[in-house]
């Protein structure tokens, strides 16, 4: 039932409130030792889903380690890790229907791993080669997949949040029972687009789940300089939106909370805000060095809460996993990633034509002219353009390949 000013008795002294008395607890089910809190009840995670999740978490960890190393070796220009936040990302993804839309920020490769993005697909994007569906136009980690309902990543922060509200509105009209999950950082939640998105979602009652990864930092900016309120979850009350704060390193809680959020979204068209309390164990990106703004001690404390280890203990406890499997899987994933990388590195760059395609559905004459002038220019100076000159003849033979 909606309550508002008209149902509350007026007061005659000026009493101010800042919401300090509102208590938003953390929802958690899994203890650090891998056992479950007594009053948590049985998890709804079944063995195949649990194994699929864990595989995706392990894959993401392996991918991140390998690709950061590749960046350090100068093989890759840039990288961003999901490390420490795998449970938040993958636990929520697993609770969705695989045809639900995901609109993420950039640190959510775990969601793709869970949905079956292949190593080749990761690598082709990272190396921006000719098989990258986005033709090497964006920086590494800007993945997208239409088949996996994963919107191509866009660097400007928070822009995907009101887009998620709109997408979900379309899903509601389409009536197929799908919803949209949008994931973003607690820093991005400061943008005006966040406010717009949540307000519009609650007014128009759309099936969207807003998942904030509160990982403590936006690059170097700690949450204390990002907001003064009680995290992100408390903001939902301003929109009368359902919200929950979850231990983001607890796979069971993330799965359960998102499952319930999805039910609210899809069955009742209630948008939901989830705040996952977690920590960015790695640097912001390969260009960043966190030692300038946070302590080793703090990092170590969070390493102890590593979501992978926590889930692993739980799986083993259940007899759904063992050390041998772990070793084998890790090794095979490492091999897969390394092989994939080696192949992707060797693939040729995208065709010159892809510089101008997709700006419009049909390339306008002026842009076509610019392209032709560029092609002629490159033919005059092939040595200056090693990424495109060698393939010009191949490409013009297969015109329109892009």
């Amino acid at each position, binding site marked *: 039932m909606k309550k508002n000013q008209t149902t509350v008795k007026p007061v005659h002294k000026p009493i101010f409130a800042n919401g300090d008395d509102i208590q938003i607890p953390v929802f958690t089910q899994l203890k650090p030792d891998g056992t479950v809190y007594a009053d948590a009840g049985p998890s709804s995670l079944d063995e195949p889903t649990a194994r699929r999740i864990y595989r995706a978490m392990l894959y993401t960890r392996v991918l991140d380690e390998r690709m950061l190393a590749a960046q350090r070796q100068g093989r890759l220009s840039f990288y961003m890790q999901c490390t420490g936040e795998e449970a938040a990302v993958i636990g929520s993804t697993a609770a969705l229907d695989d045809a639900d839309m995901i609109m993420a920020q950039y640190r959510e490769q775990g969601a793709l791993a869970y949905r079956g993005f292949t190593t080749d697909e990761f690598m082709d994007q990272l190396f921006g080669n000719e098989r*990258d569906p*986005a033709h090497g136009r964006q920086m590494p980690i800007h993945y997208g997949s239409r088949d996996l309902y994963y*919107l191509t990543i866009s660097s400007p922060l928070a822009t995907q949040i009101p887009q998620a509200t709109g997408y979900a509105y379309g899903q509601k009209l389409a009536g197929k029972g799908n919803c949209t999950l949008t994931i973003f950082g607690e820093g991005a939640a400061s943008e005006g*687009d966040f406010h717009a998105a949540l307000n519009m979602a609650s007014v128009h009652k759309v099936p969207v789940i807003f998942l904030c990864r509160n990982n403590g930092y936006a690059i170097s900016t700690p949450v204390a300089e990002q907001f003064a309120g009680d995290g992100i979850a408390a903001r939902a009350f301003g929109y009368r939106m359902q919200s929950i704060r979850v231990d983001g390193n607890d796979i069971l809680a993330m799965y359960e909370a998102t499952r319930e959020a999805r039910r609210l979204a899809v069955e009742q068209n209630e948008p939901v805000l989830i705040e996952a309390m977690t920590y960015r164990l790695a640097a912001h990106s390969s260009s960043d060095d966190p030692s300038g703004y946070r302590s080793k001690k703090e990092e170590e404390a969070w390493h102890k809460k590593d979501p992978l280890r926590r889930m692993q203990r739980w799986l083993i406890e259940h007899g759904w996993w063992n050390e041998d499997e772990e070793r084998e899987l890790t090794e095979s994933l490492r091999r897969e990633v390394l092989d994939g990388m080696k192949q992707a590195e060797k693939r040729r760059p995208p065709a010159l034509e892809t510089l101008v395609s997709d700006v419009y559905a049909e390339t306008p004459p002026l842009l076509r002219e610019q392209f032709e002038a560029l092609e002629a220019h490159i033919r005059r100076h092939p040595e200056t353009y090693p990424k495109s000159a060698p393939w010009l003849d191949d490409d013009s033979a297969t015109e329109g390949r892009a």
Partner: protein
Amino acid sequence: MSRMNLLQAVNNALDTAMAADERVLCFGEDVGIFGGVFRATSHLQEKYGRARCFNTPLVEQGIIGFANGLAAQGSVPVAEIQFADYIYPAFDQLVNETAKFRYRSGNLFDVGGLTVRAPYGGGIAGGHYHSQSPEAYFAHTPGLTVVVPRNPHQAKGLLLASIRSPDPVIFFEPKRLYRASVGEVPDEDYELPLRQAEVIKEGNDITLLAWGAQMEVIEQAAEMAEKEGVSCELIDLRTIVPWDIETVVQSVLKTGRLIVSHEAPLTGGFASEIAATIQSRCFLYLESPIERVTGLDTPFPLTLEKEYMPGPLKVLDAIHRTMDF
């Protein structure tokens, strides 16, 4: 055929589009039951229901963000920004998102279904926040299409084409013509081509180029000039970007003279692009410098609006300068 003003033509186009395709949605501030502050969306909520025509909260960045998402999903949103002067809070969503959606995803996702409508331009005593002509900001943004109609017939045909275009379109409606411009409009569903300028009147001595409400102004100037024996060719650019270079080039190759006119400030206005391109493509054929007749390099004023505006006499003065060069 029915006699309509430009506002009615826009309303009729929206009605036609919504009737023909249930994926078409109209929304924005006050567009619901009220039908928009200019009444461009009158009766659409009654006819198509609240799910397809509705008020949004007062947040332009949200309106366009929402619209981008809807378009990506496969719906065909027609979002209204109440005045073009208030489109800037949505600039990021338009310039960084709408414009780049298809490109950055390699066509995995696109927002081609999106049309953004906004009343624009001066001449209504609106001062600097109800008179702006921001087309040049968007014209510098690859991926966007910008369209401006000059009369009711054009408005309906171009708006229907915009809604159905595979690319996102910003459709600026010259609000000074909303009620002032009246004409015959076909009742049926029809589209006029995007990316094509239209030669409104042929002539030999000089080419006058404009769009939207400014067409009326150059027509008046041309009439005066014709009386003095200057034969003017008139072109309505219609689609600002991607623009129809060929039609303009052909005209200037013939006349050897060009005046471009718009209400927006001179510096960096779209006339600069046209002048830059045409001086390059018609260099040896130009008999005099390309002239621009535009607003001043100031915010849009109120009391002295008429002084600011590039009216017919200013265009006529420019014709004289150009002919006498």
